[in-house]
């Protein structure tokens, strides 16, 4: 019970805190709208227009990935710069339970993106907002956020080894948008990309949202997203333990 309370309180605090950041509002609202607009124009003008709801969901998911990438990738660095990393590690609860609410919050902030691209598309591009399977959609959304949030945990614990985490975040934004099929059908990409995409939660998350919103059975994708979330949690747990031990041994916690 106390674990759930800790996660809930941490998540609520970080969602409020990130909502006040201009940078995160840009990443999660304006940037997805820009990319969604480009994609709307491209699909409207193209020979294969497709459904614009497909595009709106993809562009929204781009925003969820960006806020997770930048938020979680820099999570431990920020704690360092603010001088709070030592406290986070010294408090009685495990470090994992301190960091997980933060990475979940960064993915949650991405929900602004989805809302923004759907509303933008509905207002200016006549994107239909009818959801084929509302129950599946309502389940798919939080499961996707949890999947990406725990992928964020893996990023948070690995990026700590890289001094310039922001540059790595910049680099990883476009490739993941591409290989997870957010705006591009995976069948158009080279064959070796598919196995790579299966390891990434955004692939299953966007498929779950599209299946539930447009038509189809979203439950297998929801299941895969949950399974991957569990795997990320285990990986993140071991990586964080390793990092914490190294940092204590080498006295490098407060190094900036």
């Amino acid at each position: 019970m106390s674990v759930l309370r800790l996660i809930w309180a941490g998540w609520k605090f970080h969602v409020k805190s990130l909502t006040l950041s201009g940078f995160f509002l840009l990443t999660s609202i304006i940037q997805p709208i820009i990319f969604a607009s480009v994609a709307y124009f491209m699909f409207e003008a193209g020979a294969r227009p497709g459904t614009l709801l497909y595009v709106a969901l993809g562009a929204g998911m781009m925003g969820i990935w960006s806020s997770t990438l930048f938020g979680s990738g820099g999570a431990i660095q920020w704690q360092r710069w603010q001088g709070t990393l030592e406290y986070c590690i010294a408090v009685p609860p495990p470090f994992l339970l301190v960091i997980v609410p933060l990475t979940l919050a960064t993915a949650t902030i991405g929900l602004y993106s989805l809302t923004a691209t759907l509303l933008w598309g509905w207002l200016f591009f006549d994107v239909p907002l009818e959801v084929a399977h509302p129950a599946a959609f309502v389940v798919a959304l939080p499961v996707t956020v949890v999947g990406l949030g725990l992928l964020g945990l893996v990023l948070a614990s690995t990026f700590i080894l890289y001094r310039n985490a922001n540059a790595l975040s910049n680099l990883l934004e476009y490739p993941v948008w591409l290989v997870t099929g957010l705006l591009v059908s995976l069948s158009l990409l080279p064959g070796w990309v598919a196995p790579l995409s299966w390891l990434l939660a955004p692939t299953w998350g966007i498929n779950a949202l599209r299946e539930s919103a447009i038509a189809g059975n979203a439950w297998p994708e929801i299941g895969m997203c949950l399974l991957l979330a569990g795997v990320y949690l285990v990986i993140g747990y071991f990586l964080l333990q390793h990092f914490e031990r190294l940092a204590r041994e080498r006295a490098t916690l407060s190094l900036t």
Partner: protein
Amino acid sequence: VTSLRIFAIGGLISYRALFYWLSVWIYVPSLVLAPIFQILLFAYIGRSAGLESDKFYVVGNAIQYAAVPCLFAMTQLIGGEKYQNTLGAILVSPAPRLPLFFGRTIPVVLNAAFVAAFSLTAGCLILGVHIPASAFIPLALVIVVAAFSCSGLGMINAALSLRIRENAVLTNVIFGFLLIFTGANVPISELPGWMQSVSDVIPFTHAIEAARELADGAPFSSVSDLVGTELLIGFVYLCAGFALLRFMEWQGRRHATLERS
């Protein structure tokens, strides 16, 4: 001679001093690899939508990505002084402002041109896009003109950074604006009329159009009017940026806000 020294040496030193943090570990992911992935993303969206050829996206995005070094570097070169606590010292010096600020533009233009040229080359190699050898030199010229043009916009952004705190946010918004309006990914003719009117008066639109024609084998003489227009737009933006800088400097002195960060 003093003005020339301020222009050339001052500009170079300022670039080196304010980009002391720009190590290879930041430069390569942000300015070498990221534009290649932007090209790939839009080329594949283009394939998915059945809109244009790969060449369209390679040329458009390679040139448009020059906006990142132009906008961020110009802002850092002038607005960054605020964070280094050196802005006051610069502005009380008797150095003439014209060479002082314009000198900082040259390294930015050269760096942006390199980023665009490298992205274009890499994009062509990866996606198998063929560009005739006769177009290489004219394309290089167009890229430099495009970088110059966007540096003018960067100068305006830099001037605004003397007043706005969250300038990185504004810079990202301008980058996204250029992504939509310059025709880098959507043919200008497919945009609504009011957007086409905006496209005509912003950096990159004419350079991208000229570069696409050159990549298709057109001679430079057939795109000289487009290049001339791009150059003119860049010049107008640079002058506007300079005027805005002087205005912000005056405002900063008046309201004692120069070093507000």
